[in-house]
């Protein structure tokens, strides 16, 4: 039987999409972005988070039925408040089959996929087809820079972005603004070019980096090693997008 590994379920996740939402954080990610703020979402394996408040196991196994039962128990409330369920991570598409089976068991709930796009085309297609909205991260357009800061090629990510545009599912491009890495005028202009006239694109969200990104590493027994200067100011430049006629929003 398919099972999924979830490192947190957070209610009233009001910044993870429209309305009142419950966000399911799926464990495991192919990327190694040096600014990642969810270090416990990187590995597929359950791990213990140790803090002065005690210990907690991040990573619980659910069957689609178990997870759907929890979410369906809130369906009326989420619907009543213009919200729904968000699948985030980690990279949720690594557990595409689990999401598909879970969503198929859900009552009528708005579903949002929050993805890095670093996944197989087939997985993106089958999950996105079941979603009402997709939040799609685009970090760096330059291939070499992308490899350097995330440990992965951006080829599949940019390819899947094109695929997403053909699926008829509305989506938002999300850009974490990492000082000197993703927030350069050059990179923003590249993203704006990608976004121009992209079918189905609602807007671009710019998410400024915050000093606290490394906060959970110690609890996860990991070390925060940013490949950039975290104290540098963030360049939240919306001009490149405005020039291309792309709706843009700084979160």
């Amino acid at each position, binding site marked *: 039987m398919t099972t999924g590994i979830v490192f947190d379920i957070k209610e009233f996740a009001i*910044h993870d999409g429209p309305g*009142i939402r419950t966000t399911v954080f799926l464990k495991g990610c192919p990327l190694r972005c040096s600014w990642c703020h969810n270090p416990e979402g990187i590995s597929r394996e359950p791990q213990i988070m140790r803090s*002065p*408040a*005690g210990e907690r196991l991040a990573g619980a196994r659910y069957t689609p039925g178990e997870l759907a039962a929890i979410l369906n128990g809130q369906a009326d409330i989420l619907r009543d*408040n213009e919200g729904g369920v968000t699948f985030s991570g980690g990279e949720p598409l690594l557990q595409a089959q689990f999401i598909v089976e879970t969503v198929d068991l859900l009552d009528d709930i708005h579903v949002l996929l929050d993805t890095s796009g670093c996944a197989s085309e087939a997985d993106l297609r089958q999950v996105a087809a079941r979603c009402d909205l997709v939040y799609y991260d685009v970090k760096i357009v330059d291939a070499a820079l992308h490899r350097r800061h995330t440990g992965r090629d951006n080829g599949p990510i940019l390819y899947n972005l094109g695929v997403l545009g053909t699926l008829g599912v509305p989506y938002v491009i999300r850009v974490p603004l990492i000082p000197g890495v993703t927030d350069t005028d050059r990179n923003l202009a590249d993203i704006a070019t990608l976004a121009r006239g992209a079918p189905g694109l609602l807007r671009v969200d710019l*998410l400024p980096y*915050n000093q606290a990104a490394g*906060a959970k590493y110690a*609890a996860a027994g990991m070390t925060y090693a940013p490949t950039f200067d975290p104290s540098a100011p963030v360049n939240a430049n919306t001009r490149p997008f405005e020039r291309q006629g792309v709706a843009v929003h700084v979160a």
Partner: protein
Amino acid sequence: MNERLEHIKGRVRDREHRRWRQPAAPDVLAECEAQALSWPRRAARLTRRMCEAEIPVLYPDERIVFTRTVPSVPSVYSPEEWSELTAGCTLHESGPISNICADWGMALSQGLLGRRRVALETRERLAHDPLAVEFLDGAVESIDAVLALAARYERAAREAGRDDIAAILAHVPAHTPRTFHEALQALRLLQAAVWLSGHYHVGLGRFDQYMWPYLEADLRAGRLDVAGAEELLAEFFIALNRDSDLYPGVQQGDNGQSLTIGGVKPDGSDGTNALTHMVLRVALDTAMIDPKINLRLGPETDLDLLQLATELTRKGLGFPQYSNDAVVIPALTAHGYALEDARDYTVAACWEFIIPGRGMEVVNIGAVSLPAAVDRGIREGLGGGADLDTVFTYTAKDISRQVSALVEAYGQLLLPPAPYYSVLMDGCLEQGRDLSQGLRYNNYGIHGAGSADAADALAAVAKLVIEERRVGAAELIAALDADFQGYETLQRMLVDEAPKVGNNDDEADGMLGRLFDWFAEACEAIGDNGRGGRVRPGTGSAMYYLWLARGHEGMREPVVGATADGRGSGEFLSANLSPAQHARVRGPISVLQSFSKIDYTRICNGGPITMELSDAVFRDAESIRKVAMLVRTFARLGCQQLQLNTVNLDTLLDAKKHPERHKNLIVRVWGWSGYFCELAPEYQDHVIARHMYSAM
């Protein structure tokens, strides 16, 4: 706030007005003894001498006057006489009538002269009844004292060239106010005189209902615009903060100046009006601890009003507190309240529902320790063969025993006469009876404290001892006795592997429901409380989340040690309706769902679901709207009462020092929220610094 109001507020914050305070209160005792006055007459004399002792204070920039100068309330009995008088009796808290609500609307509209006429008519009718005559003479004496105080302020205003204030005081509180301004001035004096008479927790009732006719008439006639009205309201609110240090309470600020807005009218129609919104806006603007706003709402209350209320929550003052009419009103009618009265409820000092002008209720005669009852249930019930029903039986029995003990202790309750307060109540002057003799509603209220810990303890026993048999009964009891010393693995199992209230888990929530059902049964079984009233069970904890865990001098309630939910001895119990401190929960939706399972028609003493939100969670307009939706969800799920707290700096600092107490504290970090206690210290400091900056 404009410059004038900032200045007035500044004076209060700087305590500048305290320089007018006199060194001591007047001596009332000597004349009471010399004239051998009865208790009712002494009470009236106290009001009179306190009013007479007041020295008018007029600030040139004030438009609503009265600054208290008498620093304390003197005794009307010597200590020896007092102990003789009260021997064998129970006094509620410090003695004087407190924590009830006047019918301010009636008092304003009749004016003190109108009330005086009623007193004199009744006196003529009941001339043969010496007790009634004595009461009414005292009532008239107190009315005359308040009128004389107003007259002295009027003269002082005239002398200071403030003809505007003099003209107002020439009319109120003697007569029906002609304007909103006059109504506020009248209310200021009427309420101040209640404090001067030695009463405390003096609530302001359904302010937007009884004040609206005056404001509406002004607005309609073009005498006043909204900005002008809000300025007056702000001045009135600021004035309520002047004497916090003189009001008795568990902590300073615990002074019961509650003010209720919103909700239905006695006829059942929606009572929300422009003043409802104005109160929220002005409270947001003045940002002081008084008055404490209670907003009544229903499942259909519009989101705009709730968004305005959420803006106030964001300020971090700890209000508004929300009460759900759709649940409260049926609970009150089920406890014998007439429908029109139930619809007219207001909120007392903390959360208790009372009827303005009609309730002489003692809403907090004590608390039932639900964890102590479960502890008893476990020890006595698991003795023979481990069987859950027996645990239930003994738990229910102990709840019943605790309720009976509290009611018994109040069997000899002595309520002192309150002639002036009676003037402001319905029917006292009409019937020639002091309110201490009883009003239409004379119920008692008991808090049901530590409910989440208690339910979790039962759920742990059901799962781990009875069902899975992984823990032996004797082992559990030994572990509790040892405060888990040497039983750490068992403690972890109790904490981590048993269901917890706050997760919409039917096992744990079922236990919560049972506990309150047993509590309700115990109260219902009492029948008459000895004063023609009933005993109302509630869901609040007040300070008992601490007292029941650590003890408190003079407390009647039992102290509990370690509990079967894994909580160590001395650790705080859950506050009001909230998950146990060490229980991990998914979030606010599940918490509301858990607490929506209580049968609130049987539970009507109030006690809010209490949640903390980081103020950063609702920073922009969109998130404010979502928090407002959460409040609406509370109402739609059929919960009774809600208190949302914005996490403030003190909480964060405490969370840093005592992370174990704040496991569920969520802070907004970046484009995400995290558990504060899982952040490394330097990041915690960062969040703290941010809150420090935003608080500046």
